[in-house]
């Protein structure tokens, strides 16, 4: 290769780098559409969005946590807890807004506890959220047992997950709303800038007069909120609340989406919008493979390989 060609390659890589994900999504859509035209049918496409709505809500809400250099491994059990609390409040005869508030607030509160321990005691996020994963799961099992709590008599609640508005599942609207709110917070509010600053250099942000610890606590609260909201939607979709929802692996799917979107696990600059790309990318891969009848094992292998390749490209860009 001539010197000029050699120099051109890294430049090409650098230009592909940040756009790798959108390009990959387009390529995949084309490939899947050719292999199986049914892929492009509106039913299927809507199905993809509905599938990713839950992970999508959790991923967008947890992006800030990752940006501050942390991680929230407890989202699975919080999802279950959110659904359970909503069920019990619903069964107690409360009105729908209170039910949703109760469930979401539970997740927010658990997140705040995570955040407080991490921000004020300085303990490592992996271990803290690992510990709360255990604690919340145990609590959920105590509260709800292993029983399936059926949600059959509350049509308005079921509407959240199973209803349709203008032909689209209502859960998609919720997802879109949450995503837009998070993007807005990131781009147009001081909180968004502060989160990036904390992820970059927490000490410098603190010395610039910001309440960094409270901010960190807040981002974990948001993450917990997202998980609980997803839990409410899921219980509404399947009409059941069980303490074992959000099984081990959920948090890994959520983190994978965030990381694929380009937010570094080490913290610093990140983007909720790009997390959305990561979410859709994974969703398209999953759905495409399902439509092509790829077996479960190959799917898992593919998922792992995809993460590796995507992140390798991202690190070459740097």
């Amino acid at each position, binding site marked *: 290769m001539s010197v000029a060609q050699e120099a051109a390659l890294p430049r090409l890589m650098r230009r592909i780098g940040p756009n790798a994900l959108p390009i990959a999504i387009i390529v995949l859509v084309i490939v899947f559409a050719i292999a199986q035209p049914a892929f492009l049918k509106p039913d299927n496409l809507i199905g993809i969005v509905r599938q990713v709505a839950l992970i999508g809500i959790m991923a967008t809400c947890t992006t800030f946590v990752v940006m501050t250099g942390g*991680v929230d491994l407890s989202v699975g059990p919080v999802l279950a807890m959110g659904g359970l609390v909503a069920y019990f409040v619903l069964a107690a005869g409360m009105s729908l807004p209170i039910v949703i508030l109760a469930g979401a607030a539970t997740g927010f509160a658990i997140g705040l506890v995570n955040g407080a*321990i991490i921000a004020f*005691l*300085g*303990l*490592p996020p*992996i*271990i*803290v959220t*690992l*510990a*709360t*994963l*255990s*604690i919340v*799961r*145990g*609590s959920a*099992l*105590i509260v709800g047992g292993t029983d399936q709590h059926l949600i059959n008599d509350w049509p308005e609640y079921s509407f959240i997950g199973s209803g349709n508005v203008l032909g689209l599942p209502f859960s998609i609207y919720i997802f879109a709303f949450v995503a837009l709110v998070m993007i807005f917070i990131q781009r147009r509010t001081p909180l968004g800038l502060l989160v990036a600053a904390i992820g970059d250099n927490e000490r410098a942000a603190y010395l610039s007069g910001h309440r960094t610890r409270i901010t960190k606590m807040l981002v974990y609260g948001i993450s917990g909120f997202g998980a609980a909201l997803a839990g409410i939607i899921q219980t509404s979709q399947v009409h059941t609340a069980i303490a074992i929802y959000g099984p*081990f692996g959920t948090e*890994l799917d959520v*983190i*994978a989406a965030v*990381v694929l979107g380009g937010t*570094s*696990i*080490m913290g610093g600059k990140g983007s909720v919008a790009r997390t959305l790309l990561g979410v859709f990318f994974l969703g398209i891969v999953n759905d495409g493979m399902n439509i092509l009848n790829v*077996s*479960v*094992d*190959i*799917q*898992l*292998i*593919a*998922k*792992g*390989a995809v*993460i*590796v390749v995507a*992140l*390798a490209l991202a*690190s070459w860009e740097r």
Partner: protein
Amino acid sequence: MNIRPATFALVGFFAVAMTAFGVFAPRFASASNMEDLMGGFSFIAILAMGEAFPILTRGIDLSVGAIVALVGMTVFDLSLIFHLPGYIVLPAALAAGTLAGAINGILIVYVRLQPFIATLATLATYRGIVYAISGRQLVEGLTTTPITDKWIVGLENYLDIGGPLGISKLFQTPWVPLSFLLMLGLFAVLQWVLLLSKFGRSVLTVGGNAEAARLAGINTGRIIIAAYAISGFCAAVAGLLLVARLTTSTEQLGFGMELSAIAAAVIGGVSLAGGVGSMFGPALGAFLLGVILLGLTLLQVSQYVQQIITGTILLAAVGYDRLLFLRRQRRANSSGG
């Protein structure tokens, strides 16, 4: 050799827990319970010791559970489908696990992925491979066929040590599981490697200050790959022990064990920041968890509460470690600057 205060605390807790449960929990201080403890938690100890190596290099290995399953399924297939004898299957299994671990290291060093992400990816991939090669799915009837090869099954063996030594005339001694002895052996070897060998020093250096290690001429890439290979090897040993116990393997083998391994290592004083820790901590941490879980079960405490308690212990351990760290820092700051 300096003994860290964290290690003292760990031993202290262990002693307290043993005594407390021995007094309050029925049948805790019995030979059969000790057998359960040793038999049930030796493989967690092995996983924790292996996990310690990546953590010492300031990384983490989330894939150990998946490697356990991978090795387990490899053993299953090689024995029940290919009918290979145990003395070929065992080394093959160990090699597979070590290779799986080394791949983690390669992803981290050459593809430059963060350890969290790399081992997350292999976690998914290896689980997928387990499904792909699963003999249980591929061949009819194997789900009910036990492995009978004596090399493999022989791993699940109990040795009467107290008897020949005459101790069992005084009180009933537990029969020591072979897995426990293997754990001790592995502990001795790994501890020796970590504390006494140049390789061990290099591992601690890479974790303590990777740039300094590189400039000192240490081949940090090789050290990191070796650390993850060791983790994979230990996962393979654990997998073998589990298969021997169950006389079969499932796709779910090792599910969630990475969390226990990490928890045991952290409780054992291995710092997530790298460069601090030994094999003693993780091993003892694993048995401490075992003591508490078995003790609570004998006290009829529900599984769910046990989960809560396990999480709380983890928090307490890492909180204590942080306290010690802050105290060390304060001392260094006041003596100069």
